[in-house]
């Protein structure tokens, strides 16, 4: 298991009021993303625990792209990765942000 931590500039603040969102599952080729509020409004902190070693450059690229495109400011994100492909990671992150913006039922 490799752990990575990213503390990123996040120009767009997260919307909505939900306190947390959970998407995905830990399975081979998939990942679980837990999103919580907390921390400075213009930062996004992402912690990754991944089964696949040696992909830090890819995580750099995927997380940088995520904070530039999605409203991720003020979020703390924990990722449990089962060796998902980058497109799946991007998709789960986007799904998580959308979920935390949704009104509570």
């Amino acid at each position, binding site marked *: 298991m490799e752990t990575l931590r990213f503390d990123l500039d996040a120009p767009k603040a997260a919307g909505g009021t939900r306190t947390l969102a959970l998407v995905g599952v830990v399975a081979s080729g998939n990942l679980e993303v837990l999103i919580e509020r907390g921390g400075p409004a213009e930062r996004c902190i992402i912690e990754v625990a991944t089964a696949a070693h040696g992909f830090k450059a*890819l995580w750099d*690229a*995927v997380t940088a*792209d995520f904070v530039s495109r999605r409203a991720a400011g003020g979020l703390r994100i924990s990722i449990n990765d089962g060796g998902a*492909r*980058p*497109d*799946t990671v991007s*998709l789960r992150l986007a*799904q998580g942000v959308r979920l935390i913006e949704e009104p509570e039922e």
Partner: protein
Amino acid sequence: MRAWDSQKKTREERVAAGSAFARGKLVSADRLAHFLEAIIRPGDRVCVEGDNQKQADLLAAALAEVDASRIHDLHMIQSGVVLPEHLDLFEKGIAKRLDFSYSGPQSARIARMLFSGQIELGAIHTYLELFARYFVDLTPQVALIAAVSADRDGNLYTGPNTEDTPTVVEATSFGNGLVVAQVGEIVDKLPRVDIPGDLVHFVVDAGKPFYVEPLFTRDPAAITETQILTAMMAIKGLYQPYGIRRLNHGIGFNTAAIELLLPTYGEKLGLKGKVCTHWALNPHPTLIPAIEAGWVERIHSFGSEVGMEDYLRARPDIFFTGPDGSLRSNRAFSQTAGLYACDMFIGSTLQIDLNGHSSTVTPSRIAGFGGAPNMGSDPRGRRHPSEPWLRAGLEADPDGPAPLRRGRKLVVQIGETFGEGNAPLFVEKLAALELAEKLDLPLAPVMVYADDTSHIITEEGIANLLLCRDKDEIEHAIRGVAGFTEIGRRRDQKMVERLRERKVIQRPEDLGIDPLDADRSLLAARSIKDLMLASGGLYRPPSKFRNW
């Protein structure tokens, strides 16, 4: 004086030698290897019928049992190198040279044997190309073929999986060669005659059906959201604007997703009757929901698909069926249909380079070509116009005079930017080139050439290579859809944005597609069981796909 019938005389001698093992045309299955030793001679060109679907498995096993001191140096000329026995021939010294097309399950072993020099390689062909050579410079002296049943005169019923048989028999029998058929049973009266008995010299009762691989069955349960996204982009970004009615799909999960989105997403876009009406396609189970929803008018097939037999029989308006009611497939004709009568080929690959060449060769596997390069190429001999073809031609050559401007077939590569094991789809150098260097091949095994490729679809966008005007633009159109691969990360963002303004690159949002809408609930069937239910119980999935 030259004798002009030496080949016919030789064949008569072989038939006489083989008849020692036969009653009439019927050869007993228990002395097959000895029978083959009697009719085959060292150095013969031999075709063991088999492709990516059906296999003359009994005859392949018997050939691997012949005495190599009697039968050796054979030149194998066959569509598929698929069974272990096909390669055992080379290990045992029975065969020496190989011309083939497809080697799916043996791709790793054939690579090792080529590297070690155990096989003398003629060439790797497309199916249609190898069929063509049967009639020019590679006519078999002996063909070992497979059929469902035979009568005592040697007439054959090949059933839904007719596939290559008529082509192999035509070349061999009319080319003075010898045809031996294995059949599942001998009957008094055949359901229909697919191969006339006077072209068949011997028949072996195998007592069981020949082997068929269910290669075209894709379980909808395994389709990912990213694959659904690429399918949505294909439908909205290509099928709709070009109005693609006549097409062929590859066998990957992305195209399976397209098939399953037609009755849902396609319906919502109002495309029923406007796209995907005519196909050169095997009977993909994933097309059942679209067929049932009335999308499809005609399908011609290369082969059949295990479990689809009853469904095909019940839909004769859609599929080509015989007087007995069962499917009649024909690989040579369907490949020709895919080449000349389709406006689009769309399929997946393992590697794409910055020129746009693509290949399925990896450093340790040589899977061959099958039919994809034939379908996935722009036919220079085409002369009939159609809207998609003319429009693609206009995009490629906007300044040419219309009446003299060739159209273009759409040849589309679709896939995720990372494949199995996180291997990038986009590479600086194809493994096919490394292979060519290692084996000293004069031609690298490229599946689809760049100048035939019109579009590349990934989850990041569609690259339209027809609109590219130079090498630089092609390179950046490719980088611009290459996602987080190294190729994608090394893009010039400004150049990519300029290409996007010209619609050389289109993002999902440019097409009005929200990637978050790419959801499995869009699939018209989400499991094999759903497909069975959609067919009204007519589709009977093979047991390995039954998980309920």
